[in-house]
């Protein structure tokens, strides 16, 4: 560490403390500070901190031993907590038995399954796929919990020993539950530290992430070692989930959101240092509880104390030295040459899409699902909502797909766009303001890009996540930003070219037109000199810099473009819904869903956004099936697909990292008359399926009938002469 860096750290710390003091002075709630209140807040803060420490140690263990940053850590906790609830509260098992079954039987099993089925395959995957799959796992587990146990039913879990008081420490009391939590967290951290650094299996766990092949050459069993790591991580997740369940409101997304605090704590220890992660978690717990006790941010910032964790995550990630960030590897898979859609192909594609949209909305192309009158029905609301999400998704294509900048905050940008539009157009719904919204959103993107300029990969993803969460907790809930109104529309129907788009069909067509224009614009951009810069930067920042591409400036521009697209899309998003609720619409999971669906569809392809429209198609289908009656199980299956689909699709990226649209395109393009290159590629692939070299046949083992045929072919012996069924069959 150089002196310069230290000084900057000191300056940052001083500034942060000064700001915190100013905030504290202005927001002092006036609660009398007594030893009792102070100790109470401290005990609760330490308990919360200990719980986050458990999550954070799970994250750190899995990250240091497998190289995968497990976004699903919190979701495993949620699953564990609900399973515990089922056994203990619902079925009346003894708490210790239930705890044992969940933490020591179910959780390790879950971890091992995760490793064997999914995570092991991520080892050589590009970082974007790694992120999407673990985030997909998180979304999947959360939605699975919601499916198994109805998420809206109020539930609670009893604290351990809740009837037997607690320990009197000073004037305040520490309940047994909290005492256990604190002790468990510390013991777990100490044991894990010992395991990782003082035992051979722990050394092997860290060795495997360094160099898996070499670990095997040493005689360690790499697969067993990584399964063990996942089992431990999963156990810690489940234990944390069960212990935290009685401290917080018991619902899936609430229990999952706390994982971001664990991320902040883990980042505190540079994702690898267990003691620092624990200290970070405890500090965060104290900070949060004490701000909640002593400060009052007013109704407009009622969730601000929850925003401390994302803000700190943001700060820590940005301030961390960026030496060892590489997760995922540069994969040297023999990638096929990527072919870019050229201008007239784009035109044909966009035209075809528009035609489909017109036919669809007119009821001529209804997939047997909708009758034209359905446009009046609620089923189509979801089609429009999905179309708006597709527009937001489009903004991710240049950013994630081309420039390789992972961004989990599309909804923050979109929401900002909606906010700008609300301030500009008021309740007039004047659509001419939309381009200006795009212009105003661009600087926000550029602002986010500045800290992003030195971040890469995982840290960039964490930063964008912290940004999204910070905006959702601090900015959007403010009364002035998005005023809460009782009933009616907050965002009026858009008026453009003298038309008020207040019917669903017209609005669908308007959004489709915007989408098509956006797609075509991106196609042109990608083929341009400037667009190639982005992809060059994705390939290798160092190489891009050496050929003279200004990397930072290029990044800023791509963020600005993406933010401005997302901002404009946000206008449609808000006007479709009519109202935005800071509590629900900006939930982290919603943002993840968009990113996941786009990624699963193929994030480097502009058309991928249209994939999002398939969700309402399923919804529509199940509504339609309900009408016909007697197919309850089908309706059930479809509903489950809609709920579980996004997560499953993202997990599917393990097997198909380039996305569904890409594979569809590969299957489809040889049909197009002008795509002789696609046909040639398929032919070359078939040829490559290892035809044996004639000279070597028969030397090492007898000919097989197939090989005889292959020789005949090679020698040009006519097909008529060669028996169709092969020589082998003829001989036998």
């Amino acid at each position, binding site marked *: 560490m150089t002196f310069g860096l230290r000084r900057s750290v000191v300056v940052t710390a001083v500034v942060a403390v000064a700001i915190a003091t100013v905030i504290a002075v202005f927001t002092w709630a006036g609660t009398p500070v007594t030893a009792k209140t102070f100790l109470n807040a401290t005990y609760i803060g330490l308990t919360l901190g200990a719980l986050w420490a458990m999550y954070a140690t799970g994250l750190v263990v899995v990250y240091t031993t497998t190289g995968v940053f497990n976004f699903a850590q919190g979701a495993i906790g949620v699953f564990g907590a609900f399973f515990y609830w089922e056994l203990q509260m619902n079925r009346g098992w003894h708490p210790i038995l239930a705890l044992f079954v969940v933490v020591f039987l179910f959780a390790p099993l879950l971890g091992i399954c995760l490793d064997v089925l999914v995570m092991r395959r991520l080892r050589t995957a590009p970082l974007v796929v790694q992120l999407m799959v673990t985030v997909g796992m998180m979304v999947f587990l959360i939605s699975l919990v919601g499916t198994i146990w109805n998420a809206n039913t109020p539930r609670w879990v009893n604290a351990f020993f809740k009837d037997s008081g607690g320990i009197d420490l000073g004037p305040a009391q520490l309940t047994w539950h909290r005492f256990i939590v604190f002790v468990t967290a510390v013991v777990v951290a100490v044991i894990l530290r010992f395991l990782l650094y003082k035992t051979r299996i722990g050394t092997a766990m*860290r060795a495997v992430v*360094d160099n898996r*092949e070499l670990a095997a050459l040493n005689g360690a069993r790499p697969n067993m070692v990584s399964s063990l790591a996942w089992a431990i991580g999963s156990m810690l997740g489940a234990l944390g989930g069960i212990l935290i369940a009685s401290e917080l409101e018991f619902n899936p997304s609430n229990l999952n959101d706390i994982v971001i605090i664990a991320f902040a704590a883990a980042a505190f220890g540079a994702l690898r240092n267990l003691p620092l992660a624990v200290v970070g978690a405890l500090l965060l717990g104290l900070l949060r509880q004490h701000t909640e006790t002593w400060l009052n941010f007013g109704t407009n910032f009622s969730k601000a104390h929850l925003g401390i964790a994302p803000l700190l995550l943001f700060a820590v990630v940005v301030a961390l030295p960026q030496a060892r960030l590489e997760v995922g590897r540069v994969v040297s898979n023999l990638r096929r040459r990527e072919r870019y859609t050229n201008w007239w192909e784009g035109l044909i594609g966009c035209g075809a899409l528009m035609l489909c949209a017109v036919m669809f909305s007119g009821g001529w192309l209804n997939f047997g699902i909708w009758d034209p009158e359905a446009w009046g029905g609620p089923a189509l609301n979801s089609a429009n909502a999905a179309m708006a999400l597709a527009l937001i998704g489009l903004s991710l294509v240049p950013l994630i797909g081309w420039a390789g900048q992972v961004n989990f905050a599309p909804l923050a940008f979109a929401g900002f766009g909606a906010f700008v539009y609300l301030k500009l157009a008021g309740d007039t719904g004047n659509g001419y303001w939309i381009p200006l919204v795009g212009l105003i959103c661009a600087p926000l993107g550029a602002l986010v890009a500045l800290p992003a300029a030195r971040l890469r990969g995982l840290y960039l993803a964490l930063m964008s996540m912290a940004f999204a969460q910070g905006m959702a907790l601090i900015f959007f809930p403010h009364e002035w930003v998005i005023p809460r109104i009782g009933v009616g529309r907050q965002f009026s129907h858009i008026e453009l070219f003298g038309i008020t788009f207040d019917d669903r069909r017209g609005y669908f067509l308007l959004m489709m037109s915007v989408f098509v224009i956006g797609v075509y614009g991106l196609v042109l951009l990608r083929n341009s000199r400037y667009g190639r810069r982005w992809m060059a930067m994705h390939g290798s920042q160092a190489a891009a810099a050496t050929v003279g591409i200004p990397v930072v400036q290029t990044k800023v521009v791509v963020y600005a473009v993406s933010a401005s697209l997302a901002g404009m899309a946000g206008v449609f998003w808000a006007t479709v819904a009519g109202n935005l609720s800071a509590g629900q619409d900006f939930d982290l999971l919603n943002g993840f869903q968009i990113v996941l669906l786009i990624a699963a569809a193929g994030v480097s392809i502009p058309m991928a956004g249209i994939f999002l429209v398939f969700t309402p198609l399923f919804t529509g289908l199940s509504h339609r099936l309900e009408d016909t009656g007697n197919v309850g199980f089908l309706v059930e299956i479809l509903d489950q697909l809609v709920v579980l689909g996004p997560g499953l699709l993202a997990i599917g990226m393990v097997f198909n990292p380039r996305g569904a649209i890409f594979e569809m395109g590969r299957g489809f393009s040889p049909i197009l008359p002008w795509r002789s290159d696609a046909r040639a590629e398929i032919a070359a692939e078939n040829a490559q399926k290892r035809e044996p070299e004639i000279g070597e046949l028969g030397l090492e083992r007898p000919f097989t009938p197939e090989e005889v045929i292959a020789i005949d072919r090679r020698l040009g012996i006519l097909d008529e002469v060669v028996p169709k069924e092969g020589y082998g069959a003829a001989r036998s």
Partner: protein
Amino acid sequence: MSDETATPLLELLGIRAGYGTIDVLHGVDLRVMPGQVYALLGPNGAGKTTTLGVASGQIQPHAGSVLLDGHEVNGVSPDRLARAGVCLIPEGRGIFPNLSVAENLRMSTYAGVSYKQVQERAFAQFPRLQERRNQMAGTLSGGEQQMLAMSRALSTDPAILMLDELSMGLAPIIVEELYEQVASLAEAGLSILIVEQFAQAVLGVANEAAIMLHGRIQRTGPPAEIAEELTAAYLGMS
């Protein structure tokens, strides 16, 4: 030294192997007798490293057999082979950069020797490693890293040692030092299979040598004879 009637310690028979659909080895036959030092030479891309990959279980051959002391070991995982006494020091510093020197040594204990013994032997051979035992292995110099990698061979009593491009990217004086270690291992009777691109250092130690070109072993013979043909082979005149 080699006895033609004895069972070869390592034998590759008609190995065809490669990556994905592309074959790199087109029928490799190779035999390392007990106590033999076998030098496998050849230019870049000849398939030498792939051969070691097959012999150590990292790469499954498409055809042919791998025999270890007469037993077929096709499909046996590399970690099992390692525990059974196959010791491959891979190309480019076979160390864990984010583990300390001592922890790197600890990883050698999977081969069935005690931690204490590994440390004693490694530090006796390379005192410099003892000075840096708590340092991250990735921060060692190139030569020190190769010493650390070699210490696994020295401390675990392997049945067969395979060395991949031991000399790559190292100063000549360090290469000399490392080959002295190899020579003393050979004297102690260890069977060694060495892969090298440049032959000078290795031919002094080996008692059998082979030239590999385009995925085939072109010629086998005493090191002195092979040395003469090497230049021609590299320039594609064989």
